[in-house]
């Protein structure tokens, strides 16, 4: 797994959904034209370490964020 493998300890992995997502803050963060941040990932199918930018080197990249739930 990428990163230090520790839980953030700041409620990131909350155990109870409260519904306080901030859609307003999203509008001003990372606007179009910005340089896309890169970060380490693990490819689920293989368990290999990679970086997100590995996937936009050869093609424009559509990135969907989400989870099973």
């Amino acid at each position, binding site marked *: 797994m990428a990163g230090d493998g520790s839980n953030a300890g700041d409620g990131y992995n909350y155990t109870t959904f409260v*519904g306080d997502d901030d859609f307003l803050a999203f509008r001003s963060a990372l606007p*179009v034209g910005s*340089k896309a941040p*890169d*970060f380490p*990932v693990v490819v*689920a199918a293989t368990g290999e370490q990679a970086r997100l930018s590995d996937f936009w080197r050869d093609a424009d990249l*559509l990135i969907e*964020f989400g989870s099973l739930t």
Partner: protein
Amino acid sequence: MAREYADKGFASVFVYTREAHPGEHFPAHASPEQKLAHARSFAERFGIERPILVDDLAGTGHRLYGLLPNMTYLVSRAGSVLFRADWTDAPTIRAALDYVAAARARRRAGMRLKPFYAASVGFRWSDPAKFQEGLHLAGPQAVDDFARAMERWSSGTPLKGALPIDEG
């Protein structure tokens, strides 16, 4: 859609984040291994063909891109954000991809194109029954938690940034 647009120069990935609606069957991640296992369950259950990329346990990537549960971005091969939406909606994505593909085609045809900033409101399909199916998949706790959130949103604590535009 990912397959269709691959032929037009677009790749597609799914970044696996925290569980948005943790429940008894898919609880909040307590370890990187658990998060990876959930991502693999997701791929298997929904037949996801795109690469699923698992963010770290602390949500490093998720935070960098805005921390919402179902965002979409389009990033150019030069690493610039071309499109972003606070929710994933297939027709909206299709429109964005078609627009970029058409612009590229016009450039290839010799037209001089200068980039500019544009924004629009999206209209996404909302299917409460299907959404409830997803909550049940997570477990009874997810169903109850969401019901409580709905009560809060409708009783004076609306979701931050919910667009008031509704054209019926």
